[in-house]
């Protein structure tokens, strides 16, 4: 069995509440990403998926209380000194963010910003750096890289900015690329191009990708494994085919049902009734039980563990685990 590249164990992220307490927004999250693998994390807004990703680079605001362990190539990321985490950012783990419109510094040229990523870690001579910037821009499919490198972000379209952002993240050939909703702000045809680009990068350079999204279709087209998060917890994980075709957790099932389908008559969109719980006061037992159509006695009394329902496929549900009674 291969050593995992990224190994998250018991990650807990809490924020202070106005009342003076602590609200855990991510609570006991564990998962692995293997070298070269593409893993998706899905969940609705507030499920803690983005915070989990940010914790992997120590990018959370100082008021967040983080505990647990995030292992990357055998080192605990959370314990790294400011100097060491800076050395890891961009080289070991790189990140692509949601909004390509605001991710570039508006007063600096795009080429300059990509070049900066190279400078921080390697400080190549000027000519080599410029050549590498052009190479990166053409790698992500930006035409006329020489001219484009000299342009400012506002002279790029949204799709091109996301490409350039990906190029910037790939500048130091990271082992893991975390893509936080990389396609959310883009229109559908551009989304598809970005996803193809990511798959191409994964195949060409062996960079593992952790894709964070609320869009289950994106997961289906790109990932090998998927992790479903709800209210700060992993509720299901497993191979994409299994999770998407035979979901074990009622939340995953509901998530899949809320995707509009082209082969069925148009009608009202299915939504999951209710609201996600307040992290400061989660419901007793299973966190999904107040919204679950199949909830029963044990669900409110006791929180189910995340356990195997099939080889490599786990779910956090008494029903799926056959222990509902």
């Amino acid at each position, binding site marked *: 069995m291969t050593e995992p590249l990224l190994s998250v164990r018991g990650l807990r992220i809490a924020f202070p509440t106005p009342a003076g307490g602590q609200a855990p927004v991510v609570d006991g999250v564990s998962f692995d990403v293997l070298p070269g693998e593409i893993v998706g994390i899905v969940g609705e807004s507030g499920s803690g998926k983005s915070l989990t990703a940010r914790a992997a*680079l120590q*990018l959370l605001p100082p008021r967040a209380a983080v505990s647990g362990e995030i292992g990357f190539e055998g080192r605990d990321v959370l314990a790294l000194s400011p100097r060491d985490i*800076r*050395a*890891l*950012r*961009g*080289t070991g783990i*790189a*990140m692509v*963010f949601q*909004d390509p419109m*605001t*991710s*570039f*510094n*508006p*007063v*600096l040229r795009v080429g300059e*910003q990509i070049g*900066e*990523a190279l400078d*921080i*870690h390697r400080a190549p001579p000027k000519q080599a750096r410029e050549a590498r910037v052009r190479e990166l821009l053409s790698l992500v499919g930006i035409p006329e890289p020489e001219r484009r490198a000299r342009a*400012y972000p*506002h002279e790029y379209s949204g799709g091109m900015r996301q490409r350039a*952002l990906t190029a*910037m993240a790939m500048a130091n050939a990271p082992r893991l690329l975390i893509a936080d909703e990389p396609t959310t702000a883009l229109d559908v045809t551009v989304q598809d191009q970005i996803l193809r680009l990511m798959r191409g990068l994964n195949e060409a350079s062996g960079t593992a990708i952790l894709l964070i999204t609320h869009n289950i279709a994106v997961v289906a087209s790109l990932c090998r494994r998927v992790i479903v998060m709800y209210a700060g917890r992993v509720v299901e994980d497993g191979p994409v085919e299994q999770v998407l075709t035979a979901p074990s957790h009622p939340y995953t099932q509901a998530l899949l049902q809320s995707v509009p389908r082209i082969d069925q008559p148009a009608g009202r969109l299915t939504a999951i009734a209710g609201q996600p719980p307040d992290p400061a006061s989660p419901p007793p037992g299973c966190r999904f039980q107040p919204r679950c159509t199949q909830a029963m006695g044990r669900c409110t009394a006791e929180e189910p563990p995340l356990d195997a329902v099939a080889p490599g496929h786990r779910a956090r549900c008494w029903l799926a685990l056959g222990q509902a009674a």
Partner: protein
Amino acid sequence: MLKLLLRRLAMSLPLVFAVVTLTFFLVRLAPGDPAAILAGEAPSPEFLAEIRAEYGLDQPQWRQFLAYLTKAATGDFGTSIYLGRPVFSVIWERFPATVVLTIASMVLASILGTALGVLAARHAGNRLDTVISAGSLLGYSIPGFWIGQLLVILFAVELDWLPASGMTTARVTYTGFAHVLDVGRHLILPAVTLAIFLLTMIARFTRTAMIEALNQDFILVATAKGVSPRRLLWHHAFRNAVVTTVTVIGLEFGAVLSGTVVVEIVFGWPGLGRVFYDAINRRDFPLLTGAFIFSSVVVIAANTVSDLVCAALDPRIRR
């Protein structure tokens, strides 16, 4: 960039014309008769009429204005009623002292104000930020003539470290570097007094702009790239915030220039501010009008420069 400059210059022309028109009539709307002041106590009506005729004050105002415009277009701003010398040469003679004072206080205010603003933003919400913010509110509210007199009392009278007034030491003639040093010593108190208002404005606006810049997504992206905190602060955040700082400096330049009037009186600084003061007291219309127009043109020029600097700093303004 050249296009922007030409556009700004084209916009400035009607502005200058408006300033000339407004100044000309506003100055004459004020109560007081220059002829009466010139003629001294209890003049005969004939003498008054003679003076009025000599300076064209007996003509209808629109005629005076047309005559003024025609001459001003050729660079002739008339003759000072009180001093009896061409207005332009009086202004030109006093201008350097004001330039020295203004530049010194602007440089001081820009450097210190920016540094304090950035420092406050970096420690936003902490005690240091509170101290800087409260201090700048105080500096912003204290009138210049009062702080100027306090500084004189402390540093000139009590401690006797610095001269209380003037631009050079009386009865001693320094040359070369010694002269520069002498002027420098005289410059400190008026420059500090004049700088306080601008300094606090710059600090406040820079702080806000820096906090906004530091909360932008691109700061997070740059952090994730491995950029050091110092570089994040200056290369990424400040490069954005500095546009606001430059705009504030450009806008407040006019306030600083009008501040020189008070500061020059308090410190006996022989600049344009004193010319204003004396011209107002003597109802010296030509000199007052000329000084107003001159200062306005300087302010318009400073604003144009600040716009161009902003465009150079922010590519989004350039188009």
